[in-house]
């Protein structure tokens, strides 16, 4: 039975959504003071970059931008199969006392964010940590909630939600593919 896929966000819609998310982040933080954006590898990094660019355009402030690879903190390494590739982690500033916003493309079970929180704790003690995701598809397995959401997508368990970014995939798009059965 062929999978059916539909476009959830077109390129233009992605741009509008990210613009709104950036504005929301600044609003929640009451400005850019102490703000640090940390994108989760891989595509969270590109999205965080877009958000930072939007903030720079509207507030004329360059917010520190970091990338976090959570592979080594995954809770499923013993069962996932061959060792996943480890990406780069770079944090431009010390995190103590900062207002960190974790940025990711899709929030699903919450395990990635759990791993990210553990890893951030090894780098220092932020004053607070918030979560911004482009897509929330529900299906949480841990008590993790986003603070800023691009859009919600109803996706049953077997379905896939893929975020594509121009830098890696040639175009900006969010696609929902329903699985054949669950």
């Amino acid at each position, binding site marked *: 039975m062929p999978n059916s896929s539909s476009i959830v966000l077109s390129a233009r819609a992605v741009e509008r959504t990210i613009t709104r998310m950036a504005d929301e982040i600044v609003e929640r933080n009451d400005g850019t003071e102490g703000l640090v954006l940390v994108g989760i590898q891989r595509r969270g990094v590109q999205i965080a970059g877009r958000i930072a660019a939007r903030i720079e355009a509207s507030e004329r402030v360059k917010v520190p931008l970091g990338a976090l690879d959570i592979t080594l903190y995954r809770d499923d390494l013993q069962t996932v199969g061959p060792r996943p590739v480890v990406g780069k982690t770079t944090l431009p500033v010390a995190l103590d006392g900062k207002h960190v916003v974790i940025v990711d493309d899709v929030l699903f079970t919450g395990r990635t964010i759990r791993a990210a929180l553990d*890893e951030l704790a090894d780098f220092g003690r932020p004053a607070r940590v918030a979560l911004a995701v482009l897509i929330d598809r529900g299906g949480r397995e841990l008590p993790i909630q986003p603070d800023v959401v691009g859009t919600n997508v109803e996706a049953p368990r077997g379905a896939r939600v893929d975020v594509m970014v121009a830098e890696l995939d040639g175009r900006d798009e969010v696609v929902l593919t329903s699985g054949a059965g669950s």
Partner: protein
Amino acid sequence: MTSPLGKDLLGLEQLTAGQISLILDTAVPLKEISERTIKKVPTLRGATIVNLFFEASTRTRISFEFAEKRMSADTVNVASAGSSVSKGETLVDTARNLEAMRIDMVVIRHPASGAARFLAERIESNVINAGDGTHEHPTQGLLDLLTLRDRFGTLKGKRICLCGDVLHSRVARSNIWGLTKLGAEVAVCGPRSLLPNAIGEMGVTVFDRIEAAIEWADALNVLRLQLERMHAGYIPSLREYNRVFGVTRERLARAPRDVLILHPGPMNRGVEIDSDVADGPHSVILNQVTNGVAIRMAVLYLLSGNTPALADAAKAPA
């Protein structure tokens, strides 16, 4: 078995270029962990690793220990001098005892060539060869490759010369396999009494004089010359060795290009390498040490994928 390297890391001779590149690529992002304040990731939490060293070695053992601890593994050091015969407990028995204690990984250094393989064939745990006799020292070879790749971008077509006692050097052998597989041109330089008689069949160029090697090379990997070789009569004296083969500032000054200097350590300053070279601007010896921990973390990470693959997840990493 889902580890892309198989159960053990015994040497570079049996690895493909792809596997070697995978280890180097994996080590790159792991370097950052040693720069953090909290130098730890939870990846190998709960894993038990035994460092089984039958030969004295501070630096390699410490490097492995850092790698293991920074991955949150539990480590146990077992130091034992000499071979089975002198020890009284055979390597077979040591292996079986370890297995009975449910060890996940063993890092072994042993004076007999083939000892790592001997152990690997008899226990289920992952075995990492930290140097077996004069056979191979794969993690040293890998960290040398990474250090060179960091500087050159690629090893393809690069000219690397191994200088010194190649005959007795496991570092040299691992380097020869690793470098040739990644497309480098490899040469050796040393007195013929310290080169294997069959060196001509190993795919490397041979330089009898260090001056010729320096003129040819992009990088020199200077091997440690051991005092025992002089006592065993392979060369007449260390003094003469330095005069004829020593890597000195004067000799390097005449090189047509900047020649990178590597050394596996510990160095005999004034014998195979002069201090002003070891501490000079072209030396990457300290980078080797830094890379050593990252390489060893990468190897531990890649070997530890030991559980049956789930259906979709069984694809090799990109």
